[in-house]
């Protein structure tokens, strides 16, 4: 085992040959953060006393959910055979929604540790990231973690990993992030196997942004990997995509606390601070260059991540609307992929139409809004962007069903994804059933080891955003895992189904669905609303309609009796107060035409909850 290095290399004057840049690819819960913590400890940059579990995950939510949303880069010294090296560990986000961010993190590395739970084997999302790493020509070091667990089956999963990436099962390193066993050997292996970075020290500076994080005190902190040239303090830099220029107020490395340096040279990884306040000015994938002596060519791979899932967020208490707006404005500073605009709904009042990278992103944002800002929110059913062409050959992007064009539609196209589902082979049948019911098209199946299969499907994203994951998990007792990536678009037979209350459209329940499913959706919503909406003084038809055509109908019959039989021994006060209370109750009702609907009924209908007290 190598000793801790007593003489760390100085940033800005480290030879590329002494640098190793790597990341860890792992599934949620497979112990990536614990392993990273152990590395910090073993290399001595965090002392045992100040070590807290999962040091690198900053946000509470991340720590609680055991997942990493924002990546960081940590520089660790390590000595092998008397030579000191600088190891840069780049922590990658671990979820399907952040594929683009993952791809940029991978592009900053020469190698990756493929970390797999020795009791569970590889998962779909890890597989997807592994493929991504292999496409980026990264050197892969396969590692089995948690070998201290009684349920660990290293023989089986070592074979699985060897099948997957080539090599022999014996070459798969076995570690325990928890006990620290094998971690020093792993660091030795990183030095030995992963190539040193290369680049032209004399060329104009080029550094790739692989992450940017908002800090309330320091503004945006931008994480970069230097490819060519050198970045120095006080230098004037330029973002190549936007041409915006900034002065470098501070430059340095995280170890793991930020340490200012004299600069960053070829192959080095570190952070920049320019004083900007919005992460949108420091975009992931963009190239940083020297303003005075700019590079002619930006680094490849930059794109603007697109919102793929849209949902309306509404405060349950309408008076919280300003709080929600402020909260979104704040979150936006640290989340470049969050976008939103004000929206009004008959059923839900004032809120925001928000665009997200995916479902988890939606979930994380909603949870942060509720937790960090004390908001009670209701989210409308998630929708995806549809391209709708009308008879007059105009094409619009529809992210909100209630904005679907009226009149004759000649073409609708919907986003597709390529989904990878990794599952024990016993569940193949039930997953096929599920995917078929969601208009999935099986592209192929691949076996891993003896009992696991990767099923590849092409499937409309709109089918996945609506409770697909819940169904997948419940049908496979939680064993199946899912990953997906965008895979273009397809024209489909899609229609918009509206829900009408006494002839008035209730915006929050409009949905764009496949023609074959329109009836089922209409039936489900009309039945659900019938159970939730209290009877009125008149008959209320609840209809589902495609355009002017009614496809389903339920009727809430009129109230016939609304009178208290008697006053109790002259207790007029009691009866008057009851009427006064009913008047107050009416103020909290939402009006759809003449129909009074308690807000809870709408919320319950959106949540699929049919048990609301009809009071």
């Amino acid at each position, binding site marked *: 085992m190598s000793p801790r290095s007593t003489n760390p290399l100085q940033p800005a004057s480290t030879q590329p040959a002494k640098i190793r840049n790597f990341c860890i690819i792992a599934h949620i819960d497979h112990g990536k953060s614990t392993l990273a913590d152990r590395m910090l400890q073993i290399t001595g940059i965090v002392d045992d006393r100040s070590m807290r579990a999962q040091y690198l995950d900053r946000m509470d939510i991340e720590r609680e959910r055991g997942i990493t949303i924002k990546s960081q880069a940590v520089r660790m010294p390590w000595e092998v055979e008397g030579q000191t090296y600088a190891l840069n560990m780049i922590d990658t986000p671990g979820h399907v929604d952040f594929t683009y961010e993952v791809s940029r993190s991978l592009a900053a590395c020469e190698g990756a540790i493929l970390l797999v739970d020795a009791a569970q084997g590889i998962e779909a999302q890890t597989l997807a990231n592994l493929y991504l790493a292999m496409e980026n020509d990264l050197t892969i070091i396969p590692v089995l973690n948690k070998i201290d667990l009684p349920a660990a089956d290293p023989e089986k999963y070592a074979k699985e990993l060897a099948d997957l990436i080539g090599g022999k099962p014996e070459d798969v390193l076995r570690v325990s992030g928890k006990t620290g066993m094998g971690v020093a050997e792993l660091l030795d292996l990183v030095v030995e196997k992963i190539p040193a970075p290369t680049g032209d020290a004399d060329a104009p500076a080029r550094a790739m942004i692989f992450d940017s994080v908002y800090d309330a005190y320091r503004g945006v902190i931008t994480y970069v990997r230097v490819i060519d040239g050198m970045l120095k303090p006080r230098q004037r830099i330029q973002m190549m995509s936007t041409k915006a220029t900034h002065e470098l107020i501070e430059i340095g490395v995280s170890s793991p606390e930020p340490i200012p340096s004299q600069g960053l040279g070829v192959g080095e990884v570190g952070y920049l601070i320019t004083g900007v306040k919005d992460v949108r000015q420091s975009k992931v994938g963009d190239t940083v260059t020297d303003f005075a002596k700019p590079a002619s060519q930006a680094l490849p791979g930059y794109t603007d991540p697109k919102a793929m899932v849209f949902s309306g967020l509404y405060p349950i208490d309408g008076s919280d609307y300003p709080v929600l707006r402020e909260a979104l404005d704040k979150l936006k500073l640290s989340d470049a992929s969050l976008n939103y605009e004000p929206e009004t709904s008959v059923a839900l009042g004032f809120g925001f139409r928000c665009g997200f990278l995916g479902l988890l992103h939606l979930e994380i944002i909603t949870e942060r809004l509720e937790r960090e800002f004390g908001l009670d929110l209701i989210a409308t059913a998630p929708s995806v962007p549809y391209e709708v062409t009308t008879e007059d050959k105009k094409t619009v992007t529809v992210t909100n069903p209630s904005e679907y064009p009226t009149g004759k539609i000649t073409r609708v196209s919907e986003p597709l994804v390529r989904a990878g589902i990794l599952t024990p082979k016993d569940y193949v049948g039930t997953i096929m059933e599920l995917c078929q019911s969601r208009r999935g098209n099986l592209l192929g199946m691949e076996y891993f080891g003896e009992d696991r299969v990767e099923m590849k499907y092409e499937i409309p994203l709109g089918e996945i955003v609506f409770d697909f994951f819940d169904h997948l998990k419940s049908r496979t007792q939680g064993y199946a895992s899912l990953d997906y990536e965008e895979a273009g678009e397809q024209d489909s037979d899609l229609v918009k189904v509206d829900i009408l209350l006494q002839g008035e459209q209730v915006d929050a329940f409009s949905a764009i669905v496949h023609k074959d499913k329109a009836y089922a959706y209409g039936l489900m919503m009309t039945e659900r609303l019938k159970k939730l909406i209290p009877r009125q*003084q*008149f008959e209320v038809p609840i209809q589902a309609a495609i355009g002017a055509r009614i496809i389903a109908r339920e009727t809430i*019959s009129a*109230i*016939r*009796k*609304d*009178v*208290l*039989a*008697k*006053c*109790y*021994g*002259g*207790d*007029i*006060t009691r*009866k*008057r107060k009851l*009427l*006064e209370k*009913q*008047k107050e109750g*009416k103020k909290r009702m939402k009006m759809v035409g003449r129909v009074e609907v308690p807000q809870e009924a709408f919320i319950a209908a959106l949540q699929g909850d049919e048990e609301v007290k009809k009071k």
Partner: protein
Amino acid sequence: MPTDGTLPDGVSVGADLRSMSAYVHVPFCRVRCGYCDFNTYTATELSGVSQATYVDELEKEIILSGRVLERAGITGRPLSSVFFGGGTPTLLPATDLVRALESLRELHGVVPGAEITTEANPDTLTYEYVEELARAGFTRISIGMQSAVPTVLATLDRTHNPQSVAPAVEAARAVGLQVSVDLIYGTPGETLSQWRESLESAIALDTGHISAYALIVEDGTALERRIRRGELPAPDDDLEADMYELADQLLGAAGFEWYEVSNWAKSPTERSVHNLMYWQGQDWWGYGPGAHSHIGGTRFWNVKHPAAYAQQLALNNSPSAGWEQPDHDARELERILLGSRLREGISTDGIHPETLVRLSGDGLIDSDAASRGLLILTLTGRLRADDVVRRVAFE
């Protein structure tokens, strides 16, 4: 309210325009019915309070009320009606009821031809009992028949034998009392045809007055718990509406006319003066634990428990537990909610014409009457009287 029960200033204003009545609460029952949330107690629920001395307590409050009314400048107002309710007033010996009536007569006086009623359980009513009441000046008896169907009575925990209703009515009539029977509809499990059976039985008794009240499942009652546990079906508003319509139809065919949402009489002279006076917003003093009073726009009510009631009176204090003077809006709401339940209706003055048009259009009020300046409920409107009140008062 001060401990001596002094009423706020101004309660005497316009007193000569209002009639004066008395309600006497008798908070005792032999058993507690599962649906009942009235202020009443069985012998085992009461300790230290005796039925035998109950009229002594009432007399103390009657004396106290005399002092309070005198201080308020309200004197010389004989009673237009007296009503003994409960509980079960007829659990007390007839002499006790008579004694309480005499005390009231002594204090207030009683107008000639005043209506003096007691509620009665058919099982406790004998010829001797009603004769004694009649002799003392009682004019009317209201018999708690509730239903003619044994299974329905059982669900209600009513212990009386349905066969005893007819003789009780006969006895009361024989001594010259006006007779009313009370019915309850909407008991869990009761069918429309069972309700028809009860109505027909009540009609066959040939009384001049029938009240029909929908059962209300009150929180905290045994009935409510049994429904919550699924032992009994929950009330069905639509069935209750059918039952009300059936009642109106059968009673109408038998010569009865509605004069208040839940009350029918064969002629105007058979209407209950006391019942009407609640809805007309007259003055009354409610005696006994938990009883409510209304004097000149002030509403006040007594402590509920008989022991606490007796305790306050023993200290020479007013037994009242609280009071309110409804503000203008509240009084206006009361005027509408009380008056609209009556056959005479209320004036349409001050009601938005559009509201009237919509109420007529929805079939809830009589459009002819509305054109004459009166808001009078239709049959459909009586079933939705609270909706009409909300629209008139709040729109």
